[in-house]
């Protein structure tokens, strides 16, 4: 909570998403209000199908909004043209669940990182400078640029790919980072490394981070504020300690009881 300020960074009002028509209508996200302050880390927790990812995609501008408004830094978000959309994406970036499908398999790692430098307006920089920037980004996430250059993303392991994603974020320095299940596809030991790096990055460039996860333990570990989502609605929200240690809603209590624990008895009779 070191860098938390009172400036509102991103605000959503009455956000709704409906998929399909008529009888097949599905309400994926239902009238969600969200206020995000600069430098804050929040988590959105819910089980599969609760609408977490749909909400994230709307915030990113990847899918249209059925109803409601999104305000970015006090102004209404405008992504009506491609140029404006690109401008918006300089400010908000994402890390997705599956590192194996996040990369274009025909492009080398160098190209991935160069794109980021170009996007930040470094297109005319001398080549040496670009290489130095890429090397710095790679060393930030404990990768060696000399070993990566001229390789394709699929030659890396899942953990390395996810770290390369963080190197991208390091180059782009966005205001908001949206991490959609960043650790669910990688094993528990790499998970600690990835989380450490994300937190280090946050301290370095003062980003605001939105974690989307079904792992309530992870949410508790990283975030200042936790939102619990059920069937497209936020059912409970508050500071991490408040929500995790003293849950009031039955849904939150159930989610908590479903996670295996090591210090308490795990009650299997509830499902």
């Amino acid at each position, binding site marked *: 909570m070191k860098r938390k300020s009172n400036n509102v960074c991103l605000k959503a009002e009455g956000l709704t998403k409906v998929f399909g028509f008529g009888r097949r209508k599905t309400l994926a996200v239902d009238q969600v209000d969200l206020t995000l302050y600069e430098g804050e880390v929040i988590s959105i927790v819910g089980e599969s199908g609760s609408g977490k990812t749909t909400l994230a995609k709307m915030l990113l501008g990847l899918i249209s909004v059925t109803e409601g408004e999104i305000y970015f830094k006090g102004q209404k978000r405008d992504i009506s043209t491609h140029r404006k959309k690109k401008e918006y994406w300089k400010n908000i970036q994402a890390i997705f669940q599956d590192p194996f499908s996040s990369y274009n398999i025909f492009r080398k790692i160098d190209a991935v990182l160069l794109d980021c430098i170009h996007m930040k307006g470094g297109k005319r920089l001398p080549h040496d400078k670009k290489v130095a920037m890429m090397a710095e980004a790679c060393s930030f996430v404990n990768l060696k640029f000399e070993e990566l250059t001229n390789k394709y993303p699929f030659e890396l392991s899942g953990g390395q790919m996810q770290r390369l994603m963080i190197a991208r974020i390091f180059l782009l320095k966005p205001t908001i980072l949206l991490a959609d299940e960043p650790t669910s596809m990688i094993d528990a030991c790499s998970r*600690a490394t990835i*989380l450490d790096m994300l937190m280090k990055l946050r301290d370095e460039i003062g980003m605001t981070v939105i974690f989307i996860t079904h792992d309530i333990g992870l949410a508790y570990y990283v975030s200042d504020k936790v939102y619990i989502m059920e069937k497209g609605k936020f059912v409970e929200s508050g500071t991490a300690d408040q929500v995790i240690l003293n849950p009031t809603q039955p849904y939150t209590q*159930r989610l908590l009881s*479903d996670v295996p624990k090591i210090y308490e008895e795990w009650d299997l009779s509830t499902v």
Partner: protein
Amino acid sequence: MANVMLEVKELTTKYVTRFKEDVYAVDHVSLTLEEGKSLGIAGESGCGKSTLALSLMGYYFPPLHYMSGEIIINGRNITKMKPDDVRKSILGTEIAYIPQSAMNALNPTRKIIHFIEDVILAHDLYINKKEIYERARTLFETLGLPPEVLEKYPVELSGGMKQRTVIAISVLLLPKVLIADEPSSALDVTSQKMVIKMLRHLMEVGLISSMIFITHELPLLYNVTDDIMVMYAGQIVEKASAKDAVFDPLHPYAKGLMGSIIVPEEGLRDVKLAAIPGTPPNLKNPPLGCRFAERCKYVRPECRGVAVGLQNLTGGRTYRCILSEGELREAYKHEKEK
């Protein structure tokens, strides 16, 4: 002493890559599994957990090759048997395997009941379809699955339900040993709990006599299995009871693994997660000495150069390190004070 269901002696298996290089993914692994016991295998990606599971079934197909060692299931040595005999008389009836992506194991164009018919008919030719249906129905009812599932196509089921259906099918022929390879890693917490409950139920009602559970989620292992075995770079580095492995690990790697546990319990936010630096060695040419030496905080010059053997402690506990139990505990105590 209880009946030994599965005994593995110095099993070594390798992968041959398309450049004809050998990768020893399982390196001299020995283990015994008694009736009514469950064993958990933990370790990071690429440490050989899943390869060990595949190797235990004794059914090898390229690029996986058998090298040496013995596998004895319920008193029968299966390493000497022909692959076809293994398939007919061992798989399904003696040992069953739930793969990592069990959800993709079902044929999308056939109903569940047709899949079950195939499984049973492959082992027992003299059974009619009505009997099969009755048998499947009884089993599904015992396991708390709705029998309507039998008449459905896999696409009509949710992820958790598909996974539980696959588990039910795997125990149709009453195997002695069940190997579950990350059965819950693609599921959310609620479905995961249902799967775990079902596996425990299988043991309780005696449909299976013993189980091997593979995952990298330690809190899960702690709650499911009696013993935990930690693997690193194809070798066993520690084996202990679940409680000892989680709260009192001896091997530095096991210690590191336990430092990365995340559970939503009070006090978690005050601890800093300990990530293990570096990456595991390449198994094409593993280092001669301790395989963990490159990443170990307590490394000594004598760790490199000579192979490190397993040290046995009382109570069936083993670990692979040149330091003695006392020295390791001293080092951890010192670390904690710092």
